């Protein structure tokens, strides 16, 4: 059952179309990464989903959002969260809980619980003005999930953090997956691969690819053979490429890379030829293209 269905979502700023018709659905309990380079439209999309920005056209329908305020169903953490710095962490979290409709005692207990979960219990009575970036990010996640929303949206939750803080927040998100669906934006594929099983890939305001990471790998990844010779790598590689006209060849510095369809066949072919002619082989490596390369190709198009 989808938590939210988005159809033909569009948004323009002045004369620039930032979001050019998005269609997708998010299902309950899934973790989905909104992937894309800076300026791809990730933040705009999330802001529209959170109701902070109005789409020019298209619809965003939350399951159960027609009857009640859809904001009950979502939690949101902006890219650069700002709090009331004069409040303590505890005051802010309880305030957020009360605003989300929790009774006083529930808000207090839930805040306590979230301080434990996010690991900032020690700082709960300190003014937020004195929090570090990582602590603010974790407080931000805590306030986003205080009312147990069905969908939590996190805008670049780890981008501004140092490696240590990043590790902690990623681990926290991993724990969160059990409680709620997560949609988080990032420009780093690694982060997405680490905790999510599905991605939405946004480029120039359009959804260029989406699905499970496993599915994308089988769809896009290609087998690759890297070859290098003691000398004349270019010449030998070109001669070898004549054997298999379907593969593409690229010279990458000291070695040649072949993208091949049938890895078994290509290996057999190349090795036999190399043995036969006794070529001075120094490197023979079989690998697969990385997903990142796939995305780079899309972006550079």
């Amino acid at each position, binding site marked *: 059952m989808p938590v939210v269905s988005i159809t033909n979502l569009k948004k323009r700023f002045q004369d620039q179309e930032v979001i050019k018709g998005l269609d997708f659905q998010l299902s309950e309990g899934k973790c989905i990464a909104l992937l894309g380079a800076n300026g791809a439209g990730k933040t705009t999309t999330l802001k529209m989903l*959170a109701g*902070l920005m109005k789409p020019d056209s298209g619809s965003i329908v939350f399951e159960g959002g027609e009857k009640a305020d859809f*904001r009950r169903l979502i939690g949101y953490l*902006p890219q650069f969260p*700002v709090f009331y710095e004069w409040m303590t962490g505890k005051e802010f979290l309880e305030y957020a809980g009360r*605003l989300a409709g929790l009774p006083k005692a529930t808000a207090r207990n839930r805040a306590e619980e979230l301080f434990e979960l996010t690991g900032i219990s020690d700082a709960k009575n300190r003014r937020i003005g004195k929090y570090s970036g990582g602590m603010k990010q974790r407080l931000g996640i805590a306030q986003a999930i205080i009312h147990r929303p069905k969908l939590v949206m996190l805008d670049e939750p780890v981008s501004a953090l140092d490696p240590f803080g990043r590790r902690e927040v990623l681990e926290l998100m991993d724990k969160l997956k059990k409680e709620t669906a997560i949609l988080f934006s990032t420009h780093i594929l690694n982060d997405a691969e680490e905790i999510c099983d599905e991605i939405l890939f946004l480029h120039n305001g359009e959804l260029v690819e989406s699905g499970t990471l496993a599915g994308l790998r089988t769809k896009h990844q290609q087998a690759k053979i890297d070859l290098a010779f003691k000398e004349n790598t270019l010449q030998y590689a070109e001669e070898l490429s004549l054997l298999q006209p379907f593969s593409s060849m690229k010279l990458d510095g000291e070695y040649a890379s072949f993208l091949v369809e049938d890895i078994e066949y290509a290996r057999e072919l190349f090795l036999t030829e190399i043995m036969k002619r006794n070529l001075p082989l120094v490197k023979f490596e079989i690998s697969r293209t990385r997903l990142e390369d796939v995305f780079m190709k899309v972006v550079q198009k």
Partner: protein
Amino acid sequence: MNQWMTLFKKEMLEMSRNFKWIWVPLTFIMIAVKEPLTLYYMPQIIDSLGGLPEGAVIELPVPSAGEALAASLSQFNTFGVLIIVLITMGTIAGERKSGVAGLILVKPVSYAWFVTAKWASSMILIWFSYFLSYFLSWYYVGVLFKFISFTDFLQSFFVNGIWLTLIITVVILFNTFMKSPGAVGFISIGIIVILSLLSSSLPHLLEWSPALLSAYANAFIMGSNFPDELLPSIIVSVFMITLSLLASIAIFKRRELA
């Protein structure tokens, strides 16, 4: 109503954390009480500044109690209004500019309650400061000059207070459609000045103008009666206050918050 109280309490807490509950009343007291004091000590002040030149005779009429209290009242309409605008201009705009409004308003918060809680807390702070300072000024006038009847004091207090309320509400209104507190302050001051100038230079055309309420209160405390136009002015003011407040909520709902 629960949520309204949560919002309202947060405003109250913020005002005590940033000392508004201390400095706003004290500032109001200073500007109000300064007037009867300087009027009372004027002859001595002139004397101490070297006195009048030899032979110059300036008759300094002794101000009446009414004049002294009216002087305080007009301080509220200059310096007081400036302070009201300065402390209210960022109440919503500032939170939107900093981004914290984005965090709060993705929670299921009623826009009407958000705006009215802000309005109510500003009202309480300002009416409290205004009453305390005007009351002390009335007391000083009584000690230094002559006591003015307390009901007269109260009447002028409420009539002028309606004008101050309209100002608070107008500042809140501009808060809802601008993100920069500076711009909110600038436009609010502009509107207040234009309204006051128009009303005082064309009183026969705009005799129902809310901006004349302060003039009516002023004349009243100096001894004349309230004119017939008082009631229409009050009605127009209350109408404008209600309208501004409703407009604030309506505009705030439609605004993009981020």
